[in-house]
């Protein structure tokens, strides 16, 4: 355990307390400021003509009628924009031999997915821009379309990009130990062939940006609904040949992101180009239909895996084949290979497993791109692994809890390196398992299940263990050449009245970043948290950093804030010592006052000190370094990632006549290290769980063979709503990382990572007595009925 963080018991001990978010009041009053709420002078609105075909050659484009339409200011085609914007390529060096073609804002010769933007219209209003889009005549020559994984890899397959030679974007193999021997010697082998439905983030606020180019200074300001403003500052500067110092990206209130709003989208680049062309501000708001067609998709995987077992129920070896279809382009700047890469590296991670082989194939098809979204690969690895584990338990006649306990990495094995090379500092697998067992009252649930089965009611109980990657170091992207920062920066400033302003590079999307940073600063400095104001989301007023991705706000951003605060505190005590003629180490800062450490006697207020520094520097000793502003950067330097762990439990009831599944209850025991604000952690977990429940039962982008999305509306693409979701019970184990003073790890993806796996196991547990199983999510009524053999 880390040593306690608070040096004295005082009123400002905020770390570990459930405190509400100061910035939430604004949102509750309808006073949020989202990008679409911003209107700039002379602002134009963009709309796009999009390809109706998944694969076609552009023969001709006629925009004359659109140009003449009311309110239209510009109509721009791909070649106009290509002159301004350097194309981007979604590959990284550490994915050896990965390929993806360069991508441009608007299609030029060919279109490779239905919905790809081809022509942009700028008009005085969005409605007028859309009116004009309807007047654009584009002739296409349709080409064969490739959608399915097997079709894309078949010999002679239609190619998404002729120049690449095949549809394989990336492949890799991981091998460790003696896999063949393990399977040859196995007492038993279980296997799965699992299909995961492609889904999409459906943030309630769609992608939105306003680009505002000022030609005199060649300065660009972009108000952008993004979680990573610094990354976009870098990208806009490089791809448009602008000075980075003159590119400002502001992320105001963001209406949901979850990874979706950190990728480069063609429309983003087009809108910046349009602002440069028109020399006026340009706004673009993706409408819901455009969001379904063009927001990143995710989780389109087929996982075939086998687990070799010994007689005594131990895991002897694992083989994995993951095939994932990523659409027409690999995403930029993170690529679309990361999800598959994390699947094959996380499979089996919680277990003692040396003999392991995984093969990954990342495949192009004529669909929108897939890429990183909350959980990135975790839910797939978790569901596939935990399904295998349950099948193994069934085969060997062991209880699901027992087989996990028997095979987990144990406490004395840390630090532990997995067969795929991940290094765990310390996990709490056994503790979480035991805690879940008690939390669910597992024996009582089993008894109730048996009793209800006699009445023809089919309940199922499922559990799923996860291991989550958090606090990523540059090993994640930086080593691959991506301009994606793994460090964060914080500038702390004491105002003359003794308030504190904290400008930090981690960003807020409602998860509570600003709140926890405020808690850390106030706690470590010794001031009331009401007096700490946290500023985020503006590249011009905050230091450069990674912002929000891959679960790093608390672990990395929090540690940055902690170290900055300690530096500031040290400066303050130094100044106070000089003013009060005392040794700094005899003084303490508590509740905004300088006190004597021994006696608690108040000597002066922080405001008095600051006023002296700012207004009466003549009274201070001439050699005193009176810095009330400090800057601090921090990047993880110990373990490449801070792994967390936990376990979910799910209770479901399956109506075996209709195939309908009712979620009755869900439990989570999680360990994200030091908890800064338990309420916010719980709500991150709950929100994440429900996204996983959506994947388990509802969410899927349904494409036909022509590459057309068949359910691209909120009436047809089913997201989880309040009525279908059970209450979620949460408990915690705390194993802080020793790599930082703070000891915090991430919790943002823990909910999503194991929820679908737990439900998959629960449903299969319910179906068990009927001797059938289901191997596909979402588990729709029809798929349940098919599994049962009720319908074809």
């Amino acid at each position, binding site marked *: 355990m880390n040593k306690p963080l608070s040096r004295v018991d005082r009123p400002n001990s905020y770390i570990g307390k459930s405190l509400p978010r100061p910035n939430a009041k604004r949102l509750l009053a309808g006073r949020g400021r989202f990008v679409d709420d911003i209107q700039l002078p002379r602002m134009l609105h963009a709309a796009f003509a999009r390809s109706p075909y998944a694969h076609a050659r552009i023969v001709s484009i006629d925009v004359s009628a659109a140009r003449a339409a009311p309110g239209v200011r510009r109509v721009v085609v791909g070649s106009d924009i290509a002159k301004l914007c350097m194309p981007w390529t979604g590959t990284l060096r550490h994915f050896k031999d990965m390929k993806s073609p360069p991508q441009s804002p608007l299609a030029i010769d060919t279109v490779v997915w239905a919905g790809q933007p081809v022509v942009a219209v700028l008009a005085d209003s969005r409605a007028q821009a859309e009116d004009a889009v309807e007047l654009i005549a584009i002739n296409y020559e349709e080409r064969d379309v490739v959608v399915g994984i097997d079709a894309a890899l078949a010999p002679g397959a239609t190619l998404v990009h002729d120049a690449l030679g095949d549809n394989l974007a990336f492949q890799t193999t991981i091998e460790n130990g003696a896999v063949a021997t393990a399977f040859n010697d196995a007492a038993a082998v279980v296997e799965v062939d699992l299909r995961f439905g492609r889904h999409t983030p459906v943030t309630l606020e769609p992608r939105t940006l306003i680009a505002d180019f000022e030609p005199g200074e060649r300065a660009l300001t972009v108000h952008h609904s993004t979680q990573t403003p610094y990354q976009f500052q870098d990208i806009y500067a490089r791809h448009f040949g602008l000075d980075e110092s003159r590119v400002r990206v502001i992320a105001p209130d963001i209406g949901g992101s979850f990874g979706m709003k950190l990728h480069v989208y063609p429309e983003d680049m087009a809108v910046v180009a349009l602002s440069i062309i028109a020399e006026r501000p340009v706004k673009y708001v993706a409408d819901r239909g455009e969001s379904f067609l063009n927001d990143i998709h995710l989780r389109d995987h087929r996982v075939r895996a086998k687990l070799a077992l010994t007689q005594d129920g131990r895991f002897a070896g694992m083989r994995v084949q993951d095939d994932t279809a990523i659409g027409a382009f690999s995403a930029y700047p993170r690529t679309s290979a990361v999800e598959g890469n994390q699947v094959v590296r996380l499979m089996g991670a919680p277990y003692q497993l040396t003999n392991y082989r995984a093969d990954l194939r990342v495949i192009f098809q004529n669909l929108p791109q897939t890429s990183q979204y909350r959980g990135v690969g975790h839910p797939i690895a978790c569901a596939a692994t935990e399904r295998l584990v349950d099948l193994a338990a069934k085969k060997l006649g062991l209880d699901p809890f027992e087989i996990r306990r028997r095979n987990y990495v144990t406490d004395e094995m840390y630090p532990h390196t997995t067969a795929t090379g991940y290094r765990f500092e310390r996990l709490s697998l056994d503790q979480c398992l035991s805690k879940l067992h008690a939390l669910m009252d597992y024996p009582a649930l089993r008894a109730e299940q048996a009793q209800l089965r006699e009445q023809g009611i089919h309940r199922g109980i499922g559990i799923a263990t996860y291991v989550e990657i958090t606090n990523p170091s540059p090993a994640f992207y930086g080593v691959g050449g991506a301009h994606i920062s793994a460090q964060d920066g914080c500038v702390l400033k004491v105002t003359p009245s003794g308030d504190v302003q904290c400008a930090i590079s981690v960003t807020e999307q409602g998860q509570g970043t600003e709140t926890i940073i405020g808690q850390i600063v106030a706690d470590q400095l010794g001031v009331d948290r009401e007096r700490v104001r946290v500023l985020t989301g503006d590249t011009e007023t905050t230091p450069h950093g990674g912002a929000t991705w891959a679960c790093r706000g608390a672990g990395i951003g929090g540690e940055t804030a902690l170290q900055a605060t300690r530096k500031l505190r040290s400066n303050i005590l130094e100044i106070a010592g000089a003013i009060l003629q005392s040794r700094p180490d005899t003084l303490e800062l508590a509740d905004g006052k300088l006190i004597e450490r021994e006696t608690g006697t108040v000597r002066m207020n922080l405001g008095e000190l600051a006023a002296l520094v700012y207004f009466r520097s003549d009274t201070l000793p001439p050699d005193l370094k009176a810095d009330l502003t400090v800057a601090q950067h921090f990047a993880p330097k110990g373990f490449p990632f801070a792994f967390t762990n936990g376990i979910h439990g799910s209770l479901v009831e399956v109506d075996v006549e209709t195939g309908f599944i009712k979620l009755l209850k869900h439990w989570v025991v999680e360990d994200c290290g030091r908890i800064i604000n338990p*309420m916010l952690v719980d709500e991150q977990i709950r929100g994440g769980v429900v996204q996983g429940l959506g994947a388990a039962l509802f969410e899927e982008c349904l494409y036909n063979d022509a590459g057309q999305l068949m359910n691209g509306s909120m009436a047809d693409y089913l997201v989880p709503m309040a*009525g279908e979701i059970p209450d979620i019970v949460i408990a915690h184990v705390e194993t802080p990382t020793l790599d930082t003073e703070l000891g915090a790890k991430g919790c943002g993806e823990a909910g999503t990572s194991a929820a679908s796996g737990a439900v998959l196991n629960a449903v299969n547990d319910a179906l068990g007595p009927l001797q059938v199983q289901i191997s596909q999510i979402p588990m729709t009524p029809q798929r349940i009925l098919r599994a049962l053999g009720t319908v074809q």
Partner: protein
Amino acid sequence: MTRPIAIMLTINAEPVTAMVESRLSLADFLRHQLRLTGTHVGCETGSCGACLVMQDGRVIHGCLTLAVQADGSAIQTIEGLSESGAIADLQAAFHERNALQCGFCTPGVLMTAQELLQLEGVPSREEIRDALSGNYCRCTGYQAIVDSIETTAQRRAVGEAEQPA
């Protein structure tokens, strides 16, 4: 292009006159013409509930109502409900319980909640979830929202019981 139409209505208890295009939705009218940006737009097909406002005391979708249809009616937006203090207790319950994250769905959720809470009795959790069936929230997982509405209903019931007859 059709000519704009003059409308007169009451918004948050203040009279408003405006010229609007007949195709303009009430949500876009409120947001972009009157700058009442607390009403949000999430789907424009009545599926997500981000644009809910009150028209003559009933919660409706701002995206499925034209501004011209609202001529002569009384509209309440989140700004009005907030500033009148009518939902101060509900907002406080949401704040304490962290029943919002990004806040984009929140104004619509508060509209649904307020209409539900104006009915007699304390709704069950199932009734609260049912009432929220048209309010999409991607962040919270709904439980904190249900908790906050339940808490407010209980507090209001106690408050009413304690009122002198």
